[in-house]
């Protein structure tokens, strides 16, 4: 009973939906729901079927099994016009007519509201202009769609969906083709549509870091089922993301939302004394040169650790907010012993990391090649 009520309240939901091509189910038992103002994001590897799910919900593919509900009503029972007034769709179909202005292109979004011949009323024009302004594309209204950049085209596509005045908007990878600035802008538009107008947003994204930041719930698509479904903090805790994409645990730092390359293989040949971010450029440089290294002595909450834990063969860490123990210092000294090069990244010393001054003296006394700058490191590698 409670479930039934929830379905009724959802802008859009699916029930034991199975999707695929030619009668062959690709993904089964899909149960999603987006409430008013919620952003639901599908993530998953290339070819996992995100687009297939979205195309089925957008009514471009027939569901193989199960039901899609729009505002609690079975989509099959609704007319095309009724659905179009509720749901706008931005898929990856990229057709640019030759001689159509951006204004005309966007005004196609008024289709479910115009009459037999598609003539625009004043109210339609207002909506088109509002949509163009919302995506910062009003200036290019009179340009031909075939002449604008990919980024501008993407924004025009969003404007077309916006002026459809939907309660639900379905987008397939809306950020592809966009640079960072426009990605940010686009997600902010979607976010404000959700929060201010109560539009439910259902989309797929390639950028999992952006997905984590913008979504209310995340759907992980892999194999023939939904691998995981939940709030971003649940999804990004543990190894869900690494499992989803089949990458090494630790390569993806979910706290900072950044992807690191794999650590160099082989014997440790370098020790980096860093901290407070000073070590990061050295870690990256060593990774690029495929030079296995260790890092230390760092506090576990140091920004250096987030990168070092992915790229270094070994990271010597203290307990949180505690000075290094003798054991930790000895381990670091052993690592310096086997290294040829020691990097002193230049982190200011304080009460907690005074031990690093000891390590610096140790390295010098052992006659190691000591490097204090990136250019210095490049010379010795």
């Amino acid at each position, binding site marked *: 009973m409670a479930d039934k009520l929830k379905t009724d309240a959802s802008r859009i939901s699916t029930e034991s939906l199975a999707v695929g091509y030619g009668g062959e189910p690709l993904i089964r038992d899909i149960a999603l729901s987006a409430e008013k103002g919620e952003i639901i994001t599908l993530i998953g590897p290339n070819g996992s079927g995100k687009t297939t799910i979205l195309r089925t919900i957008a009514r471009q593919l027939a569901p193989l099994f199960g039901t899609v509900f729009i505002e609690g009503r079975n989509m099959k029972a609704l007319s095309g016009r009724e659905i179009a007034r509720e749901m706008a769709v931005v898929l990856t179909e990229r057709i640019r007519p*030759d001689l159509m202005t951006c*204004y005309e292109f966007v005004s196609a979004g008024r289709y479910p509201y115009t009459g037999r011949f598609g003539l625009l009323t004043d109210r339609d024009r207002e909506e088109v202009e509002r949509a163009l302004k919302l995506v910062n594309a009003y200036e290019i209204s009179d340009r031909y769609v075939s002449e604008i950049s990919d980024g501008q085209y993407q924004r025009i596509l969003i404007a077309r969906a916006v002026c459809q005045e939907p309660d639900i908007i379905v987008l397939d990878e809306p950020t592809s083709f966009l640079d960072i600035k426009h990605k940010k802008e686009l997600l902010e538009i979607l976010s404000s549509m959700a929060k201010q107008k109560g539009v439910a947003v259902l989309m797929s994204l390639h950028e999992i870091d952006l997905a984590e930041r913008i979504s209310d719930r995340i759907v992980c698509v892999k194999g023939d089922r939904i691998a995981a479904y939940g709030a971003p903090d649940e999804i990004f805790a543990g190894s869900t993301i690494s499992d989803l994409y089949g990458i090494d645990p630790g390569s993806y730092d979910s706290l900072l939302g950044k992807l690191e390359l794999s650590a160099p293989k082989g014997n440790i040949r370098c020790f980096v004394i860093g901290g407070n971010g000073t070590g990061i450029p050295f870690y990256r440089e060593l990774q690029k040169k495929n030079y296995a290294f260790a890092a230390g002595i760092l506090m576990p909450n140091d920004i250096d650790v987030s990168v070092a834990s992915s790229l270094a063969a070994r990271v010597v860490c203290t307990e949180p907010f505690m000075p290094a123990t003798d054991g930790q210092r000895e381990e670091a000294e052993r690592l310096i012993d086997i290294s040829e090069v020691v990097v002193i990244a230049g982190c200011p010393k304080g009460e907690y990391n005074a031990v690093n001054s000891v390590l610096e003296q140790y390295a010098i006394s052992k006659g190691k090649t000591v490097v204090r700058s990136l250019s210095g490191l490049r010379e010795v590698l």
Partner: protein
Amino acid sequence: MSGDKRHGNSRNAMRIGMVFLSFVILLIAAAVWNLRSGSVSIPVRDIVRILSGNGDPESTAYSVIRKIRLPRIVLSAVLGGALSLSGFLIQTFFRNPIAGPFVLGISSGAKMFLAVTTIAVSGLFVDMPVSATVAASFVGSILSLLIVILFTGRVRNMSSLLVIGMMISYICSAVTDLLINFANDSDIINLTHWSMGSFSAASWQSARISAFIVIPAFFTVLAFSKQMEAYSLGEGYAMSLGVDIKGLRVLLVLLTGVLSASVAAFAGPISFVGIAVPHICRMILKSEKPILMIPASFLCGSVFCMLCDLAARMLFSPTELSISTVTSAVGAPIVIWLMLTRRNRNGR
């Protein structure tokens, strides 16, 4: 800002109004020019008198105008419009700017079926009746179009569909050639005459029948202009707007078939009008909106065919050229020129 936009819109609307007005003026001018020119030149004053019913019904001028030139003008206007409109439809359907109603083997199918019919019924009639020619070429066009459509579902790549259309065209030609080997000379002459294309067989009857087919088809196309515009933005997108894609496809195919088949039936496979005229209209209108393109293509096609027919009659008078000779000679350079200017614009 918003004032600027309104201004831009009204200026645009005025330009479009001017385009349509010039089409109508050209249409009238072409009609008058056609009426007065020929082996017997008739002054405009006499034409006006004859058309207003004050002429002498016994005079030569009267019967030349009323029985020969006028039906021919009506026929060329109706079929020219039909041909151009069906070209626009097929270009919309395939999203291919160089598709024409006859590029996809529609005319070859019509010719093949006409050959079959001509040979099959040659014992029954001395002369093929107009209705039989219409029926045969109509059925032939629809059949070949249906075969092309059958492949549409299988190939995703539209350019390979075009190749398939050409191949169907070759197969039909091969069958036609085979049949010709077993045909009487009189049948072959009939077929050859048909395939060169001409409005010379125009009569009030053929003008009436073609208008009866083409005009309702025109208004049906116009009634679906909104759906066509959505379709031109992508099938998936159109579906999401609630367009019944399957129904629209069938409709587009049927209308294209009806329009081009009536052209093939009454005037033969006239080349290039279906490809060139929609392009000319796009360039003049600077828009692809079907609601504008449909009437513009029709009007422009009418004017184009009337002028080409005039040239066919007059250039080497008294020898009359086939209409395709003129339309190809005029149309092909226009298409090349349009392609070049198009490339420049997209090349940025």
